Each structure stands twice: as C-alpha cells, then as structure tokens.
C-alpha cells in the first residue's frame, strides 16, 4: 500500500517543522535562491536597506517573544539594542575581539541586563510596565553619554568590529575570484543570522518553554496552578528578548560603522522602541515570521523616504529636493507614518500581515470552495 508523502502516521511526522508538502519545499528553495541571488543583482542602496531590515527582524523577533508570546509590554527595547551596539564598539573595535566572541558577548550582556529588568514585570503590568521600561532609555542615554572610557562619550565612537568567521571575512568577502562589497558580505552574514534566530525561536515557542510563555500571557493564575512559574518565565522572556535586541544592536553598529548615545536614549531611543513595536504590530503580534514581514515594511520605510526626499519634492517637507520651506522634517514625517501604520493595523488588521498570509493560504487550501 502506498501512502501520500504528506500523510501523518507517527508523532514524529506530526511534529515536523519542515512539512513534506511540495509547496513548502518549493517555498524554502525560493528563499534560498533569493538569499544567494539578491545581493548580486540589487543596488548598493537596496542591499543596505535589506541589511537594516535584517537587523530590525532580529530585534523584532526578540520583542515578539516578549510582547507577542509572553504579553509583556516594553518600551525599553532600544536600550538593549544600544547595549549590543556598544559591545560591538568596545569589545569588537577597541579590543579587537573576533565576531564569534563579541557577538555572543553582546547577547550575554543584553540577556543579563534584561534578566535584571524582568522582576519589575512581576509587580507591574500593561502601561505601568511600559513606563518603567521607558525609564531605561533615559538611564541608558546617561550611561552611554558619560561612561567615556567605554562608549566614547557624547561624540560617539567609530565601529570597525571584525566580521570574520574562519576563512570567511564578511567585511571583505572573496569567494574564488569574485570579490563582494562590504554591504554584500553583511547581507550574507545578517540574513544567515536571521534564519538561524528564526529557526531557534520557532523551536522555542513550540516546545515546553514557549508553551509556558504563552500560558503566562493567556491566563497567569491558571498557569501558576499547573506548575508554570510566572516569575521564572517572565524573567526568562525579558532575558531572551534583550539578548536578541543586543545581537541586533551589534549588527546595527557594524552597518552604521558608528554609534552615539542619542541613537538609543531619550527621544530618538523612544522612537526606535516604537519602531520595533510597529514592526510586530504590522507584521503580526504572536507570529514569529510576522516579525520579519513587519521588518520589511517598517525597517525599509524610513530609508526609502529619506532616499526619496533627496530625489523628489515632497509636499510640506523641508530639506527635500524641492528646497521649499515646509513644516515637516523627513524625520517627523517618518514618525507620523509609523503612528498611522500602528493605528491602521490595530483597527483594520490587528493580527498583522501574518493574518493576511494565513487567509490567502486558507483560501487556496479550500479552493474551489469558499470555506
């Protein structure tokens, strides 16, 4: 007797992450082709935008684990991104640690500090937790600004952290006779990390610890009564989320090649935190691949608008190509667009782009029937 390849006869089959359906396999193959092909055909500007999307995706996966899966709101995500960026500056650049040392160090430090913030979530929830985590941004700005021996102070510091793993130097990639630019090399590195982080996070949420996080989110008392410790899982969620934020920060620093305190603290830091929140709302709260979808929209938008403003005369915007006086700067235009995006998605598609994708999939699954 023959059976369809997709038929499930064992629990092992039911638990497969990579389904055996043709569509799924074709999809994975297409992504792989895109990974190899895109950096060779896209322009330098486009690759730079995609690298930033990748950095946002890593951080957003972290925030989604905390907010989407554990239900804890945080406005302090930018602070942890800053921690990672300064690890790249201090350990990577000043001390010349290799990639495989400074990147784990960023994750470790971010995770440790996150674990110290976690206990606040045991007493506070919702907007109160948001305010506490907001405070982190200001503490962070102060520390980054004044701990000059490590951070270089208010003027900021150059980042030239090594990007070498074994024989592969992603900062100066040569394969055979082909020489890749720094941006192309970064693309290969960052998107490989995105894939790895996505895979690990996906495994995490479908096994015991991930279920516990979601139990705490849905019903904390019921979770406690079946033996899921709220304290343990809330603190762990903060640690894991900050770990990923700090890794993202490390990549941000090497993309930027320069970090300064104002990027992660105070008002601009708050804007960065809100960008991460926008990503998971636009992409889909509580769906990991939604974090990547959202990163494409929110991560690319500001750069695209900035680029646009140097080529096109945008109405009401000052400092663009037209040169006319306007009441908006490009930065505030971006801020407004994010506000608009968040409101629009919360109103019309609260489960984000991921929900759109699920609907399309369901439609074709049941085609030609409508349900």
């Amino acid at each position, binding site marked *: 007797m023959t059976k369809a390849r997709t038929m499930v006869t064992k629990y092992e089959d039911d638990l497969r992450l990579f389904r055996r359906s043709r569509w799924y396999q074709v999809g994975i193959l297409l992504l792989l082709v895109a990974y190899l092909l895109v950096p060779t055909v896209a322009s330098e500007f486009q690759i730079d935008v995609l690298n930033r999307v990748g950095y946002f995706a890593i951080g957003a996966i972290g925030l989604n684990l905390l907010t989407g899966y554990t239900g804890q709101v945080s406005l302090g995500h930018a602070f942890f991104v800053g921690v990672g960026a300064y690890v790249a500056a201090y350990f990577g650049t000043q001390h010349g640690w290799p990639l495989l040392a400074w990147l784990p160090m960023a994750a470790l430090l971010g995770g440790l500090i996150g674990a110290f913030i976690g206990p606040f979530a045991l007493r506070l929830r919702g907007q109160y937790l948001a305010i506490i985590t907001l405070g982190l941004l200001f503490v962070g700005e102060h520390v980054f600004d004044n701990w000059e021996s490590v951070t270089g102070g208010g003027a900021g510091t150059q980042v030239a952290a090594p990007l070498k793993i074994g024989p592969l130097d992603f900062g100066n990639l040569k394969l055979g006779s082909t020489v890749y630019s720094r941006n192309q090399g970064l693309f290969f590195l960052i998107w490989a990390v995105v894939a790895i982080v996505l895979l690990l996070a996906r*495994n995490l949420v479908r096994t015991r610890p*991930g279920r516990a996080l979601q139990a705490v989110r*849905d019903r904390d008392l019921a979770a406690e*009564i079946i*033996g899921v*410790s709220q304290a343990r899982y809330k603190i762990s969620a903060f640690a894991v989320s900050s770990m990923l934020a700090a890794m993202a920060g490390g990549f941000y620093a090497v993309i930027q090649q320069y970090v300064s305190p104002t990027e992660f603290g105070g008002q601009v830091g708050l804007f960065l935190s809100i960008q991460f929140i926008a990503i998971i709302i636009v992409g889909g709260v509580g769906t990991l691949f939604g974090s990547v979808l959202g990163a494409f929209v929110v991560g690319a938008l500001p750069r695209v608008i900035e680029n646009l403003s140097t080529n096109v005369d945008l109405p009401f915007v000052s400092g663009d190509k037209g040169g006319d006086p306007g009441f908006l700067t490009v930065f505030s235009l971006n801020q407004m667009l994010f506000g608009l995006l968040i409101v629009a998605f919360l109103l019309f598609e609260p489960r984000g782009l991921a929900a759109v994708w699920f609907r399309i999939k369901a439609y074709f699954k049941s085609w030609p029937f409508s349900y």
Partner: protein
Amino acid sequence: MMTSSESLLSVRDVTLRFGGVAALTGVSFDVRAGELFAVIGPNGAGKTSIFNCLNAVYRPQEGSITLQGTELVGRKPGFTAKLGIARTFQNLGLFTNLDVVDNLMLGRHLRMRTGFLAGAVWLGRARREEIEHRRRVEEIIELLELEPYRRTHVGSLPYGVQKRIELGRALAMDPTLLLLDEPVAGMNLEETGDMARAILSIQASGVSMILVEHDMQMVMDIADRVMALDFGIPIAIGTPAEVQSDERVIEAYLGVAS
C-alpha cells in the same frame, strides 16, 4: 468501587477571612484515596474558596490542610501542582490562544524538563519529550473525545468542548487529587451525561476527586460522600442520601417558613 478508608487529603478547622467577612469557618473534612467527594451549597457558600485554599491561592488564617501528610497552608500554587493537585475552573481557565494539544501538553509541564536552550535546539531532549508526552496527551484526547479539535484554538470552540478540554488539561497532570469546579454548569442534559461518564471513568482509574457542583441530580448520582456548606460553615457530611434528607440542608436551600 474502592473501599480503602485511608485518608488522602485532610482539612482541619480551616477558617478564611477577607477583612471582616468569614468566607470559611471551621471547615474540616477528609478525602479518602479513590473517593469522589462532593461539596454542595448555595451561591456564596464558600465552595470555590475551599478550592482556592487547597491550591494555595488563598491562605487561610487558621487551620491546616495536608495531602498525604504534607502541609499545604502557606505554600505557593506551584507547590500544590508538584504534589499532584490538579484543578478545573468554574469560569474556564484555558489558554485561549493555544490549540487543544498545546493546552493538554501544558498539563504535562511539570513532568517535562526541556528548558530554553534544549527547546530552541529541538533535536535531542526536546524532540524526545514532545513525542513521549504527546502519547499520554493523545490517550486523554481519546478518552474525552476531543479528536476533531486537536489543532483548533480553544477560544473558538463551544463552551461544552472547552469544559472537556479543561478537564483534559487537569488529567494530563496525572494528578493524585483532582478538583472539579462546576464541571457541568451551563451544559445540556446530553453534555452533562457525557461529563458524568468521563468523571466516573477517571475515578475508576484511581484518581481521587473533589467535585463542586450545583447539579444535584448529578452529585447524588455519582458522589461517594457529600459535604454541604452554608455561609462557609459545614452543615452536613455523609452519603448523598444522608445529606439529602438532612433538615439543615433543606433549610439552607429552601429557606424555612417563619
């Protein structure tokens, strides 16, 4: 039916006050191994408060509660779970955004070991445990006839099914003592019958149970012993027939002509 008279749970003189209000006053009872013990009483009699004391959600001011000799008063809810006390809630305590399998797997939480690292890596312990515990979960799915809903989010399922899922989650803990808070409230006759059969087959597998229920017909049919509460004070303990004919119980339920 089991005739063992050894006491599994022993509740002695438990008094629980909220400010000036006494929710429970001097409550004492024993649950024997394998027994189905029911607690009845009018609304606000303190039935659910007893469960919250057993679960260490509330901490009674006086008295002691011991399960197989271990004191529960002053402990944390997680400790009672480790000792083998499982519970369903009156107004459902399910994880509504998770599917049926995940809800039941959460019942296995304490029996699994996978941590963050092992979970993220998947291969090895996490995978082995997922398969091993899925096996037990599937037995429960079969017992409670939840097969059609495995991968459905429980929030979108009908109330009667959700009640069964919650019972399933408690069962997945392989408890020594199962607390059922109004398992058939809001159910129709057919659903009530299904639930009663499920409860009896769970009892037959050796699990002791405390049942809080308003459906007198069901309580009288399936309980081994019954305790009646009124305003937090126990007024009768005995077999269903004894409690049913107790004058004070009739008084509490129907009031008395003045």
